[in-house]
């Protein structure tokens, strides 16, 4: 194997492992954070860094070892960068609404209206 192939192999392996470790770290955060609004943050690591690392590993792998520039794999990070904020915002609004209904310790709605 050439030196370039070896470097690409190491790069793909590092990116795959980095994606796994980042996802595991965000799962630990999801499990251990004390309140829901803190728990909303860790999954963003998996939504961004872990997905970027894995998609980049797939692209480099197919580019170097199968001679195909599989750039369409990058559609997944683009799609997630559009959808993840929408999910997060909807879920945060739902959680805020439900906490207010329960009388929890959250800020009141702006303007004094009901949610």
């Amino acid at each position, binding site marked *: *194997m050439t030196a370039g192939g070896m470097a690409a*192999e*190491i790069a*793909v*392996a*590092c990116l*795959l*492992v980095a*994606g*796994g*470790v980042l*996802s*595991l770290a*965000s*799962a*630990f955060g*999801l*499990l251990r954070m004390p309140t*829901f609004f803190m*728990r*909303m943050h860790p*999954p963003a690591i*998996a*939504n961004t860094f*872990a*997905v970027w690392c*894995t*998609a980049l*590993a*797939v692209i480099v*792998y*197919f580019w170097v*070892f*199968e001679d*195909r520039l*599989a750039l*369409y*794999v990058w*559609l*997944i990070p683009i*799609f*997630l960068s559009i*959808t993840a904020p*929408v*999910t997060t915002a*909807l*879920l945060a*609004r*739902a*959680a805020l*609404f*439900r906490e207010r209904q329960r009388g929890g310790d959250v800020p009141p709605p702006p303007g004094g209206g009901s949610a």
Partner: protein
Amino acid sequence: MTSLIAVAAVIALSCYVAAMALAFVRLLRGPAAQDRVLALDFIYINGMLVVLVLGVRYGSSMYFESALLIALFGFVSSAALAKFLLRGEVIE
């Protein structure tokens, strides 16, 4: 498939499975419904990543479509569940 990438794929897959197990604990424990929806969304993302890594492991691009579909359905289900928690119905 070289041995280094095969080992890295196995390590990454183990990490994803462990992350899904931790998120499943959060899914069971709650305490509120929004925690469960968040954990389900996280499990969807990890399942998509597992499929992508399997695509590298077996050197096939067939896995990409299923990964994209999983991401799509994960978004739709999380958005629908969040809307349900907000309003009590999905489509008004």
